[in-house]
């Protein structure tokens, strides 16, 4: 009896639908993967537990090239995209001597050439049962229907049968990586599909990652592999490494979360506030206080300037209104096209204006947004004295606005310079040390 290890193609990568075909034999079987956390079922009543999966047997035959390509970079559990499954093996080993002369499951091979439907909607096919015992009464296992020969086997979670690693193309060392194994028959009949656990991120390691670890699941099988992985990363920088590993250690230890780690590069770091060498000179503190005060008063002034500008607009309306009134007035002399409209309130200085603005009359005017009455208004037709006063005050307001902006910028720059100087001084003191003056 020729034992033919079933050569089957390595299962394709789970994320990409087209299966990779390395089959030397006829059919290819694609074993799809998904990340689940169910543990494998163990057969409960087996009298030869030593021969089962999990016990390392030295019979390591030549193993087939193995499982799917690593796609553990993606954190999302990948749904099996496609599974074109063939009924494997049973029809391809006609040479297996079968017990009772019964051909194992003369199931017509289903060749699926078109793109496979999703796994969930496979209709269960009628499968004839496999023989369990041979002529001598020994239990038969695996697709090859041989009694237990001591080779490493894995148990199917669907049918309780056991399968040699060689026959189903699962390497013994990858046994830990299998999450739940369903034999080909169970897959076909729809009991389930084989799922794999996520592999440790270190490329050479084939142990499963500790996704159960609390509080956070880990991508590594052990902490040492995590460290080793990052050592490889930092060593693998092709250009000159921007940061040495000790510096990286300092940076990484200084942050409290991964998100914060990613945010590090956005801004220049500031020296810690509780720096014992951080001395500020008293004149710097005075200057900073003075700058803050000036900024406040500039803000107030801007409000006043803004108020004046609005008042200016309302005088325009008022001039028109008075003009209308005068025209309607029978006693008035000939009224020209417009009146001068200059308001004597424009001659008020800053303090007086602020006082008027806060008075009841001022508040009233600003609430109503119009100015009643005509006191203090120049009513001349062609006024030489107040010629072109309107564009004059508009320009004045604009100039003040501009000067305020510039002054604010100047103050901000000065403040920044003082702070910069303080920081640099503290850094220098930290590095070089300070000299204390003895009194």
């Amino acid at each position, binding site marked *: 009896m020729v034992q033919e290890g079933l050569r089957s193609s390595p299962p394709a990568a789970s994320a990409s639908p087209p299966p990779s075909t390395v089959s030397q034999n006829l059919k290819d079987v694609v074993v799809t993967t998904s990340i689940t956390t169910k543990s494998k079922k163990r057969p409960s009543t087996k009298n030869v537990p030593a021969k089962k999966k999990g016990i390392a047997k030295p019979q390591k035959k030549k193993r087939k090239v193995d499982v799917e390509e690593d796609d553990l970079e993606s954190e999302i559990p990948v749904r099996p995209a496609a599974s074109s499954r063939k009924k494997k093996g049973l029809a391809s080993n006609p040479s297996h001597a079968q017990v009772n002369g019964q051909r194992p499951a003369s199931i017509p091979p289903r060749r699926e050439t078109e793109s496979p439907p999703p796994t969930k909607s496979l209709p269960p096919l009628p499968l004839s049962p496999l023989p369990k015992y041979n002529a001598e009464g020994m239990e038969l296992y695996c697709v090859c229907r041989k009694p237990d020969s001591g080779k490493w086997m894995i148990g199917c979670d669907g049918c309780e049968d056991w399968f040699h690693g060689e026959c189903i193309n699962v390497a013994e060392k990858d046994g830990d990586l299998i999450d739940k194994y369903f034999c080909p028959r169970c897959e076909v009949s729809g009991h389930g599909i084989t799922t794999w656990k996520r592999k440790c991120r270190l490329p050479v390691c084939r142990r499963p990652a500790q996704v159960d670890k609390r509080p956070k699941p880990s991508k590594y099988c052990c902490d040492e592999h995590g460290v080793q992985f990052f050592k490889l990363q930092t060593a693998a920088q092709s250009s000159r490494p921007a940061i040495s590993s000790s510096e990286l250690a300092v940076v990484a230890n200084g942050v409290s979360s991964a998100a914060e780690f990613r945010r590090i590069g956005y801004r220049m770091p500031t020296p810690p506030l509780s720096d014992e060498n951080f001395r500020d000179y008293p004149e710097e503190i005075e200057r900073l206080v003075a700058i803050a005060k000036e900024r406040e008063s500039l803000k107030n002034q801007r409000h006043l300037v803004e108020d004046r500008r609005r008042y200016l607009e309302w005088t325009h309306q008022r001039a028109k209104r008075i003009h209308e009134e005068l025209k309607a007035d029978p006693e008035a002399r000939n009224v020209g096209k417009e009146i001068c409209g200059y308001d004597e309130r*424009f001659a*008020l200085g800053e*303090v007086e204006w602020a006082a008027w603005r806060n008075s009841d009359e001022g508040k009233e005017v600003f609430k109503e947004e119009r100015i009643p009455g005509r006191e203090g208004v120049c009513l001349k037709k062609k006024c030489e004295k107040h010629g072109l006063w309107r564009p004059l005050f508009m320009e004045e307001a604009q100039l003040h606005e501009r000067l305020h902006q510039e002054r604010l910028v100047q103050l901000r720059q000065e403040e920044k310079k003082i702070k910069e100087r303080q920081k640099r001084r503290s850094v220098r003191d930290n590095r070089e040390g300070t000299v204390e003056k003895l009194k």
Partner: protein
Amino acid sequence: MNLSLLDPFTLAQDYPESLSSELRSGHSTCLDGTVVLFDVETNGLARYLRGHVRQIQSLSWSQDGRYLASASQDFKVIVWDLSKNGEASARTVRFNAPVYCAELHPLNPNLFVCALFEDTPYLVDITDPIPKKYPFSSAPKRPTIPGAEEGEIDEKRAAADAKHLTTVAVFTVSGEHIITGTNKGWANIVSTRTRETIHSTRITSGCITYIRLTTSGRNMVVNSNDRVLRSIHIPDTLREGVNGNEIKLEVEHKFQDVVNRLLWNHCTFSGNGDYLTASTFKNHDIYIWERSMGSLVKILEGPKEELGTVEWHPTRPLVAAAGLESGKIFIWATSNPQRWSALAPDFRELEENIEYQEREDEFDIHPKEDVTKRRLHLENEDVDVRTIEPVRGELEDSWTMPVVLDLEDTESEEEVTVAGRRKSPAVEKEKRGGRARKRKVDG
């Protein structure tokens, strides 16, 4: 060069001779209202004062040079405090009309007098945050008619007097009186304290356009649009509380251009009051007269353009004038040619080559010790390199303006042509006091 090495005759020259340099600020004579301060020592930009939006009509320094009052057509007078930078450096006083001129009180920088366009003149006190404006009348005080009582005046005269408008107002040197000129040609003397007109004289029939006093306060020049400059002597009796009727303003000399009958643009005195300078209308010259004799001393020529305001330096023989078309400021000074004979005692400047006849013992060989002893003896004296001798006329301990290091650049330097003609921008040098740093101002 060292003062002692200069030719004493050139040193004694009081008035400048030739054009020496030019100053430019990007916007000079562009009528936008910026005040630019130049430093006289370096001819460099010292300060840039922004606050006005229309052209500046007049500038006035305080006694120590710390405050500067600028009056502009945008209805405002701003008193700048040059020791501060930023918000607190400017005090603004607003009026109801464009301001013709403003002058700071000689002793109190918080007080100034200003004349408005078609409005009453004011005496303003800015000691408090709210400025106090005191108007005073432009009407001249008529001498009492014999037979009538003090205060009674003719009806018609009163109506005519009401039409007077003050065009210029200056303080006397003590600050106790204000001298104003009206548009009808009258000069009024007003008491500062009471703001009453105590004396009036009719000086001219035209409109008085400018009045300027000497540093000593004894003379003043009046410019009017009848093309005559009058220098007037102010009596020493003009003090506080004097009776107005006893004052008499006498015209000493009249200066006019008899050839072309030109109008005078601007006039000023020299620092010590000996010379009177004036610039002409539509002409390129500056005239310098000697005031006491009334004789023409020099005509300064230089740029081929009309000059507006002209100013004389308070202590040095420098004259600055603003060109109306190009916007540059021209400076005339005395030139000190290098005298090579001053560098070594036995240098002599020659007109032509002469054959040298050596002395009898010229090339004798003297013993070495004598020569070295003589040389060492000469080297023993200490050379004093530290003391700075004050230039005559300057005060020892006056205020100097702090240097602002991060001055922004003035805007583009392309040529700007001046639009208007009548109101030319003001160019002034510091009039009183001030130590090594003198400044020129241009608006």
